[in-house]
């Protein structure tokens, strides 16, 4: 197997007294799209800025293409493309100039692709960046990153402000880039539906902690929703099953579990004859985990130490 493209080990970053990222370890492999999920302020952008080398870690380390990301040689920098939150090009630059700039910085720049994507966005190359709407600006930044011919794509909310068709188009192109070049992409977002289609792996960050990192196919295989009508307390589902969260809807208790290899039939047998067992999409799973964690945070014993 090839080497990881991104390798974070115990990565930690403080801003004053705030710990934005806490002891985070994860790897991203070539050919993979990682969906980095979490509420606003969870640490997604901090993570991406550390990976890009724009920030120095307080503790731990992060390697990009095998090198510490703060000391990435120029030839490796050209193999990385980013869409950030605060790296807008100058407003007076025309799209033609921006394409030329990117072509100069990226030896494998795919000009036909860039021009085609601009056309798809309804943008002529004579337009100035400053004259574009918010969504159009995001589209242009994404076009520059996608056409850069990079092996690593670091995209922070790349689809912000885009309409649904453009979001879908954008993520399809990310998948194409990854498949065709064996590239790797990290997409930080809190809009789950679009990225769920093309992602291979999901990482959920909550208050700087990595709370879940798993292949999506494995989650689809393992996570189940168990609905129990007229039930007071959750029955003991026991060995090997981990409870991710539960809520009460009227008389029905709904629980989400990771069944770790247990068959649906066996889960059904343990949950009782009235239980309904079904698969769960990523959005539901994400909300369950987020609510579960927020409840934990409200308990006075947690996080006050």
């Amino acid at each position, binding site marked *: 197997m090839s080497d990881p493209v991104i390798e974070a080990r115990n990565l930690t970053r403080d801003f004053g007294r705030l710990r934005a990222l806490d002891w985070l370890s994860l790897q991203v492999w070539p*050919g*993979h*799209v990682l969906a980095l999920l979490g509420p606003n302020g969870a640490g997604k952008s901090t993570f991406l800025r550390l990976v890009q080398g724009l920030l120095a870690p307080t503790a731990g380390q992060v390697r990009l293409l095998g090198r510490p990301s703060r000391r990435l040689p120029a030839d490796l920098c050209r193999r990385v493309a980013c869409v950030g939150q605060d790296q807008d090009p100058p407003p007076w630059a025309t799209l033609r100039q921006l394409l030329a700039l990117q072509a100069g910085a990226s030896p494998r720049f795919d000009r036909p692709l860039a021009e085609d994507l601009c056309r798809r966005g309804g943008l002529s190359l004579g337009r100035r960046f400053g004259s574009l709407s918010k969504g159009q600006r995001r589209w242009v930044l994404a076009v520059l990153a996608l056409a850069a011919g990079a092996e690593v794509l670091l995209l922070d909310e790349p689809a912000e402000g885009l309409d649904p068709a453009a979001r879908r188009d954008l*993520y*399809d192109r990310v*998948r*194409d880039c990854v*498949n065709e070049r064996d590239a790797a992409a990290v997409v930080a977002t809190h809009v789950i*539906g679009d990225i*769920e*289609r*093309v992602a*291979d792996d999901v990482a959920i960050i909550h208050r700087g902690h990595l709370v879940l990192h798993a292949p999506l*196919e494995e989650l*689809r*295989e393992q*996570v189940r929703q168990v609905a129990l009508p007229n039930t007071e307390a959750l029955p003991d589902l026991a060995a090997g099953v981990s409870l991710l969260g539960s809520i009460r809807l009227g008389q029905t208790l709904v629980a989400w579990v990771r069944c770790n290899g247990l068959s649906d039939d066996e889960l059904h047998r343990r949950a009782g004859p009235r239980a309904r067992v*079904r*698969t*769960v*999409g*990523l*959005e*539901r799973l994400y909300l369950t985990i987020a609510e579960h964690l927020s409840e934990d945070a409200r308990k006075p014993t947690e996080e006050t130490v």
Partner: protein
Amino acid sequence: MYIHLDHHGGEPIYRQIIEAVKYQVASGQLAPGEKLPSIRGLAGQLKINPLTVVRAYEQLQHAGLVVMKQGQGVFVATNRSSTPVGVRRKAIAEMARRLLAEAARMGADRQEIMDVLQAEARQMESKP
């Protein structure tokens, strides 16, 4: 080969591909010996990881529904008996439901539908 994927229902993608191919083989939309899309091709069409397609094709091969030939591609198995009875029944039931619904819309009763079915079957058998 057209496959519709549900990305949000929580069913693993590789299994949706397996089910779709099984169904299309059972219902005759994919003929024995027919070539399936390449791994790269299907991954590009469905916007998924090629490894997911590999996983589906390998399991289909294991189940005897497709044959992967080195350097040539993936083909629907020519051995017809390899279609599992359960899948076949499901596919036929689906077609039957459509037929019954359409026929009912035109005002046909069950006897008439059965008569037509029998007549058509006889006619197919009499052909060389």
